[in-house]
């Protein structure tokens, strides 16, 4: 996926300004940056939740808005934090929705198999017939990931997937992201607040400041004292933990 000259403004206030980058295939890319830097806006635009003012997004050689919605849903999955469900819906039902772009409301035998696989992959077997509103935050997040797996897309876009999760669930979430990439060969793009999660679990990092890209590169290229201090305006120390550059800020 190629993003070229992306622009977005709200009432003349420019929030994303001439952003261009290419999402590396089959890798994990984290978007980081301070609040209001535009990372979530960029994410929402490539997730087609927000219209863009200017620029182009090329997805597999074709502009994003020229794709048929249904075809795009088979290639690109998104998961945001606003997932309130007011109705009675079981985990199995939710995961089954992942097959909607393929078969609509009528599931085939093939679909049922994919749904079961996704549920097993996320170890949700015991919970399959529980209602979504009876689950804990971590379980619910896993159910949504299972749905994304059932959707069987090449790309997965996650908007702040570790939000509202404790250390245990957040870390498991990040390990899951890694598995999506390594085992299921998906390209994963995620917005993260915690730079150490980004450093430990992704291949590439794209850092935003004031609506522009401050730095795009491999984890090693971005995770150094000078770059991080410039982005966040606080002091940083970089430490090597388990062969990954992790940061301490104060």
């Amino acid at each position, binding site marked *: 996926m190629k993003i070229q000259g992306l622009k977005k403004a709200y009432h003349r206030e420019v929030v994303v300004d001439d952003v261009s980058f290419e999402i590396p295939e089959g890798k994990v890319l984290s978007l980081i940056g301070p609040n209001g830097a535009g990372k979530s806006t960029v994410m929402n635009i490539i997730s087609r939740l927000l219209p863009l003012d200017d620029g182009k997004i090329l997805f597999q050689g074709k502009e994003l808005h020229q794709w048929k919605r249904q075809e795009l849903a088979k290639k690109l999955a998104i998961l945001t934090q*606003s*997932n309130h469900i007011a109705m009675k819906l079981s985990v199995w039902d939710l995961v089954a929705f992942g097959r909607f772009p393929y078969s609509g409301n009528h599931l085939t035998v093939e679909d049922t198999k994919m749904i079961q696989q996704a549920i097993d992959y996320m170890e949700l077997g015991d919970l399959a017939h529980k209602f979504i509103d009876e689950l804990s935050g971590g379980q619910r997040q896993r159910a949504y990931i299972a749905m994304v797996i059932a959707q069987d897309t090449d790309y997965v876009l996650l908007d702040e997937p570790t939000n509202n999760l404790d250390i245990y669930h957040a870390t498991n979430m990040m390990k899951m992201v890694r598995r999506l990439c390594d085992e299921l060969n998906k390209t994963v793009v995620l917005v993260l607040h915690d730079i150490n999660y980004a450093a430990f679990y992704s291949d590439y990092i794209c850092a935003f400041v004031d609506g522009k890209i401050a730095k795009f590169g491999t984890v090693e290229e971005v995770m150094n004292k000078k770059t991080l201090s410039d982005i966040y305006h606080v002091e940083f120390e970089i430490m090597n933990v388990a062969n990954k550059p992790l940061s301490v800020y104060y």
Partner: protein
Amino acid sequence: MTSKKNVYFKKLLFLVVLACCAAALYQFTDVDINFFSFAMRIRGPRLAAMFLASFCVGVASILFQTIINNVIVTPCLLGMNALYVLIHTSVVFLIGSGSKLSVNSPISFVVDLLSMAVVAVLIYGYLFQKAGGNILYILLVGSVLTTLFSSISTTMQRMMDPNEFDQLQNSLIASFERVNADAIWIAVMAILILVVWLWRQFPLLDVLVLGKHQAINLGVDYEKVSRKMLVGVTILIGIATALVGPISFLGLIIANLSRQLFKTYQHRYLTFGAALVGMVILFAGQTLVEQVFHFGANINAFINIGGGAYFLYLLLRGEKQ
């Protein structure tokens, strides 16, 4: 999965049988055999009106709750009740209660229906697009409109001749006793047109349950579907209101009873369930009004008392969860 489907079908079948029994009870209780066809001519249109009103209100309420993603809202919030009151008050105020537009006739029905359809398309179709698909904005517009319409109506009612006001009051309370057969045929036509117009959107409804972002993720044109549905809901409520008067509060009861009964998100069961529950309530309620209270009470009073109590129950239960 098939066993679940069977359970749903059994429940639907049970409701159909119950509704048929209630309809028979209404239609045939205490009929003098000498005046059989006369009684049928009186009760027939009322039965048909109750049938259509339950269908419109039931389906509209379930759809509305899905679009708003909240199970305790009622399509009352769209302001159709207040608009109905305003139209009738204006007619009596401006051209008098004896006019053709005011005495119960198909003309009055068509005027109601057209005004409501215009409001539905203009306000809910156009504004929704303008607001970029923000549904809360629509609710706000609905409640502001309700207040505006009610204030204008109240002002006119205060300045009105007391006799005229008395006449007006009759048409402002939901009732099945003054329905006429021509209006029913027009209503059936309107519903059919609406169903054809919305046909392609119905299979997408289940996905809307997941919310805006997930609907978009799964390849649904969220804005278009919810805009069309919103206009459809408004017109359905308009049809029911034009037919029998302000009745949409019934929707809260029957939609939630249907949800409690079916415990599913699937609209093909929920919508028919709500419509059938509505029929059972209305048929039985109207039988009570006619046979037990001898028209001394109005069915609307029962709906409001029952609906109010049920609404409180839903709120309290929601708090516990």
